[in-house]
């Protein structure tokens, strides 16, 4: 009797809340791939790559269908094992989640296209585990984006981290050391997050994000709530390499193999930033904590310090990948600035920067990977004159570099534009000045590199062998991403008005839309 009643409740819930199978279909191909790729790969090694590609492509396809379904019909829900939330775990996808899931899966698909040949050349024997770990990484990341449960998010967090640690340990001889340091820091971050969840669970008795948000909105300020928020900001800040917790990042990105860096750098820190947005704006009462109690100010000023530290360190680097790694520290910090300002325009800038930085940074890391593979050049001085010898590769690089500096009409311009508008709305003139000044610092190291790439002619003795464009399959993702930064820039109004204006948290609306 009670069972039948429970089933009815589940059905009622399903009808009322936009139930759909789409969210789980984004995760399922990756989950199956994690099992099938190592399994079949042991038997037939050449099957590993096509299977990986199919899993990534299916996941991207369903992520885009989810995005369009959410834009048309509002948030989607999927209850796992038919246990109705808040008791059961549910996948809950709103416009922000669907947007980030689509970005992550498409970037991962493009890197996977590149990886087919790159991994075969870099790690000829270890293709099968490499692709398996790529699937584990993406499984964790999409799971983090789609889940609506606080503890489920922790599990996906650790799944993605395990993939990340093992991918980062492949590459340079020193890679295991930097991967181990990242493991210690990453686990510390995830544990802090879990402790924050523990405090929330102690307070509310629930783990469902929407349910917890509903309960704590009635609580007002509570010291335990503040402690849990601080734990989460520290934990996620560690994972997203927010200044001053960024020290693990440069070594890890520099020593990992080029494909590992190209898939980890653009999306992993961004997903932690997404989780921070999800927690601060959708679970906690953002106005109370970020604006009234000035947590936002702390995040904002630390982040802008991170922008400067990252940019200045990038200027001083001699190694191409290390320069890009420091610039990642700076660029992720822009997202932190948008989070800290906590007004609609700045938050849109932060959300837009998640997508924009993912596109440009993956393009840049794919280029440094191709250059290292074709010519063996890793140091910036070896890049002299490569622009004429690898024209297609460096065409993509040029677009992405322009986007990093923030020149219109590339996408990088628009995310900074919204951040600056947000600063003006708050009347934060020092912050506006600092954001604009930081663009100049970015310009210093990218224009210096572009000048070297295009105008310097290398001396006879340092002319590297094999300096020509890589094969079509490695060139295609670079070019698509290079054109992508332009297209995303030109169509940014569509993203803001159609997608991100729906993605804002309760109580925020974008003026003019």
């Amino acid at each position, binding site marked *: 009797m009670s069972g039948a009643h429970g089933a009815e409740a589940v059905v009622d819930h399903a009808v009322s809340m936009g139930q759909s199978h789409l969210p789980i279909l984004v995760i399922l191909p990756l989950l199956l791939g994690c099992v099938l790729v190592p399994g079949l790969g042991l038997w037939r090694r050449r099957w590993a790559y096509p299977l990986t590609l199919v899993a990534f492509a299916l996941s991207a396809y369903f992520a885009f269908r989810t995005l369009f379904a959410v834009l048309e019909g509002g948030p989607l829900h999927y209850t796992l094992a038919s246990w109705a939330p808040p008791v059961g775990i549910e996948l809950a996808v709103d416009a922000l989640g669907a947007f980030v899931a689509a970005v992550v899966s498409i970037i991962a698909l493009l890197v996977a296209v590149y990886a087919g040949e790159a991994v075969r050349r870099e790690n000829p024997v270890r293709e099968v585990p490499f692709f398996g770990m790529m699937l584990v990484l993406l499984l964790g990341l999409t799971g983090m984006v789609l889940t609506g449960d606080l*503890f489920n998010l*922790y*599990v996906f967090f*650790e799944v993605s*981290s*395990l993939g990340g*640690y*093992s991918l980062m*340990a492949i590459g340079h*001889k*020193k890679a*295991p*050391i930097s*991967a*181990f340091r990242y*493991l*210690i820091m990453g*686990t*510390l971050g995830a*544990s802090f997050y*879990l*402790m924050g969840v*523990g405090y929330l*669970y*102690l307070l509310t008795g629930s*783990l469902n994000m929407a349910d917890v948000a509903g309960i704590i909105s009635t609580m007002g300020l509570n010291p335990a709530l503040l402690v849990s928020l601080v734990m989460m900001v520290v934990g996620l800040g560690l994972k997203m390499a927010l200044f001053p917790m960024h020290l693990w990042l440069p070594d890890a990105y520099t020593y990992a193999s080029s494909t590992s860096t190209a898939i980890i750098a653009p999306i992993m820190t961004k997903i932690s930033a997404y989780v921070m947005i999800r927690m601060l704006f959708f679970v906690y009462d953002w106005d109370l904590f970020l604006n009234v109690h000035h947590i936002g100010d702390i995040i904002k000023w630390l982040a802008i310090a991170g922008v400067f530290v990252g940019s200045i360190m990038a200027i001083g680097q001699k190694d191409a990948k290390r320069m890009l790694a420091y610039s990642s520290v700076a660029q992720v910090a822009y997202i932190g600035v948008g989070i800290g300002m906590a007004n609609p325009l700045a938050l849109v800038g932060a959300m837009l920067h998640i997508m924009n930085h993912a596109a440009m940074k993956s393009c840049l890391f794919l280029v440094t990977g191709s250059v290292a593979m074709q010519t063996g050049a890793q140091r910036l001085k070896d890049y002299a004159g490569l622009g004429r010898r690898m024209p297609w590769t460096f065409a993509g690089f040029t677009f992405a570099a322009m986007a990093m500096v923030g020149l219109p009409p590339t996408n990088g311009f628009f995310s900074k534009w919204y951040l600056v508008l947000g600063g003006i709305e708050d009347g934060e003139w020092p912050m506006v000045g600092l954001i604009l000044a930081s663009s100049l610092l970015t310009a210093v190291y990218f224009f210096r590199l572009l000048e070297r790439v295009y105008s310097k002619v290398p001396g006879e003795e340092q002319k590297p062998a094999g300096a020509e464009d890589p094969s079509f399959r490695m060139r295609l993702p670079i070019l698509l991403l290079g054109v992508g930064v332009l297209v995303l820039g030109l169509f940014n109004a569509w993203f803001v008005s159609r997608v991100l204006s729906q993605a804002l948290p309760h109580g925020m609306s974008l003026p003019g839309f």
Partner: protein
Amino acid sequence: MNDIFTTLIAERWAYLLTVVMIIIGLHAMMMKRNLVKKLIGMNIFQGAIILLFIVHAYKFGASVPVHDAVLGDHPEAYMNPIPHGLMLTAIVVSVATTGVALALLTLIYRRFGTIDEIELLQKLREEP
């Protein structure tokens, strides 16, 4: 003031243990030179968080969370199973992380012949 300390030690001593474990874990992760000791610190830290959940879920005199006609429908009569379930998952996660970390440590030891952080940093500086 005295009362608070008395109740804290008499009734909430397990929470104090959590705090002590967190401090030991953080200290080992940050200050120890030996990478294995850092890993042990990480495990102590995770253990502290597991303890936090379990201590909070503990009820004196409660039964297993299966409905019993004698005990009736009182929620006080049953344990809350969710934190225990969560922590089983957290233990699995921590074991997996430890496994990856140990694999990395063997790799480091094979390549550099040491797991002492300061010696490793020296070797890193010497090599290109």
